[in-house]
């Protein structure tokens, strides 16, 4: 499933594409889809926020983080979380737990 529309895809690519070494929007979108909708490895965690509309995935080893809308299904965002942000939360597990519990969105 792709981003919701071409504008979302273009803005997110511009903002985060370089973090993954992507040269094109297609490349970035493909990575986002693989991460959010592909098979999960042992190091990747998944949860659904209390609002029931955001499904999250996080891979602690490379700090890849993605959010997908549950219904209708599309990519909301996909980026590499800053190390400082993870440290501020108290580590990868705490960061993901906090993200999963967020209701201030």
């Amino acid at each position: 499933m792709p981003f919701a529309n071409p504008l979302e895809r273009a803005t997110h690519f511009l903002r985060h594409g370089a973090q993954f070494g992507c040269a094109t929007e297609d490349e970035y979108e493909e990575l986002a889809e693989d991460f959010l909708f592909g098979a999960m490895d042992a190091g990747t965690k998944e949860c659904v926020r209390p609002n029931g509309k955001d499904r999250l995935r996080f891979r602690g080893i490379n700090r890849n983080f993605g959010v997908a809308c549950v219904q209708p299904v599309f990519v909301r965002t996909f980026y590499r979380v800053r190390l400082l942000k993870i440290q501020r939360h108290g580590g990868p597990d705490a960061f993901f737990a906090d993200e999963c519990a967020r209701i201030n969105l």
Partner: protein
Amino acid sequence: MKYQCPVCFYDGLPYPPIDYHICLCCGTEFGNDDEDFSPAQLRELWIASGAGWFFRTPPVDWNPWMQLQRAGAFEALQDAQKRAVIDAAFASFREDSDGLRQETLIAEEFSRADWEAFEMGERELAGIES
């Protein structure tokens, strides 16, 4: 319907500032960046980085300083940014034909003798003996 960014105050957003949408003007990702910093802090960072337009080309006549001023954020700016606002205001003044004519007249009235007196004063201030 258009929405306003709470960080840079750009009011042409095609979506509300939530749900990981990204501001076309300052590049703030809502739900990500504003989880770490307040809108005022993000605004300061944006201004400190030059207050540039984020996505593709800016709208015609877009001016970040005027945008901030219109939103009442002028007081938050540092002196350098305030000067940029004033420069932008003077630039628009020059586009006006009357303004340009007045500027030319003032320049013509500032005669050679005035320039010499002005330069002499400058040298004295700098401690240079002529």
